[in-house]
């Protein structure tokens, strides 16, 4: 299963303050640890909301609203996507987030990504037939008109 670790924005990220060298080092170490463990899929930091915009549909028409946005604590400053075996494993990784981030007061949110299994009924036991890659390729190509 996949989880997104959402790093909530704060006054500094919204002001575009660059992270300290020490934080960058610790963040890299943390990310490397997750890469080595085979769990990290992706991760990005975001520009402040001042550079962002919102699109709100009104009566079916898109209306653009330029940033920045006031509700700092509701905004996000970055995300990390991980793939793990359980919710607890995801929690364990989040707990290892560099504690100096946000001067010791960083707020993270953990959200599970919806996966195909969550729509379980579409998958039936009949599909357990054996098919290796090459076999599948042959089938696929054989069916091409």
């Amino acid at each position, binding site marked *: 299963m996949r989880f997104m670790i959402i790093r909530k924005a704060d006054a500094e990220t919204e002001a575009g303050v660059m992270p300290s060298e020490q934080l960058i080092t610790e963040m890299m170490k943390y990310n490397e640890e997750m890469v080595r463990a085979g769990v990290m899929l992706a991760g990005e930091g975001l520009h402040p909301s001042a550079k962002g915009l919102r699109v709100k549909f009104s009566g079916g028409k898109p209306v653009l609203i330029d940033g920045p946005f006031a509700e700092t604590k509701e905004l996000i400053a970055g995300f990390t996507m991980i793939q793990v075996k359980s919710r*607890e494993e995801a929690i364990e990784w989040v707990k290892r987030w560099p504690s100096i981030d946000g001067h010791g007061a960083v707020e993270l949110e953990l959200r599970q990504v919806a996966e195909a299994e969550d729509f379980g009924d579409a998958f039936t036991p009949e*599909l357990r037939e054996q098919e290796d890659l090459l076999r599948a390729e042959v089938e696929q*190509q054989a069916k091409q008109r």
Partner: protein
Amino acid sequence: MTLAATHRAIDAVWRIESAKIIAVVARMVRDVGVAEELAQDVLVTALEQWPEKGVPDRPGAWLTAAAKNRALDHLRRVQLLAAKHEEIGRDLEIHGEAFEPAFEAALEDDIGDDLLRLVFTACHPILAPEARVALTLRLLGGLTTDEIARAFLLPEATVAQRIVRAKRSLAAAQVPFEVPRAAELPERLASVLAVIYLVFNEGYAATSGGDWMRPALCDEALRLGRIVAELMPQEPEVHGLVALMELQASRARARIGAKGQPVLLLEQNRARWDHMLIGRGLTALARAERLNSALGPYGLQAAIAACHARAGTADQTDWPRIAALYDALAQLMPSPVVALNRAVAIGMAYGPAAGLELADALSHEPLLKGYHLLPAVRADLLLKLGRRVEAQAEFERAASLTRNVRERELLLERARGCDAS
């Protein structure tokens, strides 16, 4: 925290730390079976203590330290025995590392090296392939015997026995806990990659409901592949395998239709492909290509998968490139199935007549006798050439050879289609 919650938390820590702990301990005691038992003892201690005293701040460090202590106790016992058994004593001298001063060095050593030793030991060629798989999932994946058994639809006792026997075989053969030397490396690495790909295919063949542990094998294989790729970043085939698995996994949710029927690659809704995994797959393939422009078998298969991944629609597929990649694959890994794939690709790239000529050349291939895809491929090519009567007969023959009901229906439907106009 409730008891159940603490146990789940311990499971999670175990999942993250167990391979590293076993690897470090195995380096000290030089026996993966003993190492795993010592690590398990520590896990039991944690399960007893943490619910009462609370989970330590750095649970991984706690487990590792406790495991190292157990390893030291174990070695002291062995040393006492060694004093009585000259033979063992000599053996320890040869290793020269089983004594106190060397411990520190062992502990400080890069954990990555220990993990890599563990990977190669679990996939050692003296073990039967199914034993390598079970041991790898157990030691590196941190899966329980029960989980492995469920994933492979086997009784738990069978898997437990496989693991016990595998550990015994490794000990009996005195398999050294080390990364193979350069001369041995290609063969040993091939075994590691084969184990990982086998796990992946086992899960990929079972994208269906039932027990979630089966499809979870894909994730497990991907995780193992990514770990080995970081441990051996200089090996192109490791990245090739990771690329192949990421690209195949990217199509997992598109290959089953709403009614549970298989959806073939060229008919899949490409919007349902997982573009994050495609991106990861292409990156891994690029890593493999940077290391060696002549790709190995996994890299080539990944490159073929990448041709599909890069095509926005089925019509945009670069068939000449796929045909060329199959040429290269057929050189490295000659097999009638690869040859048949090549025939299909050539048919797509250069017209059905060229494809049919190659497919016909395979009609006396003993390994393809009874393989329904040979007549299915021929039928398709014949139909494209307007030879409807022959095509119909071949579709019917293919239908009579397949054991899969859905596939038979599909082939018979195509056979009937040959009648039209």
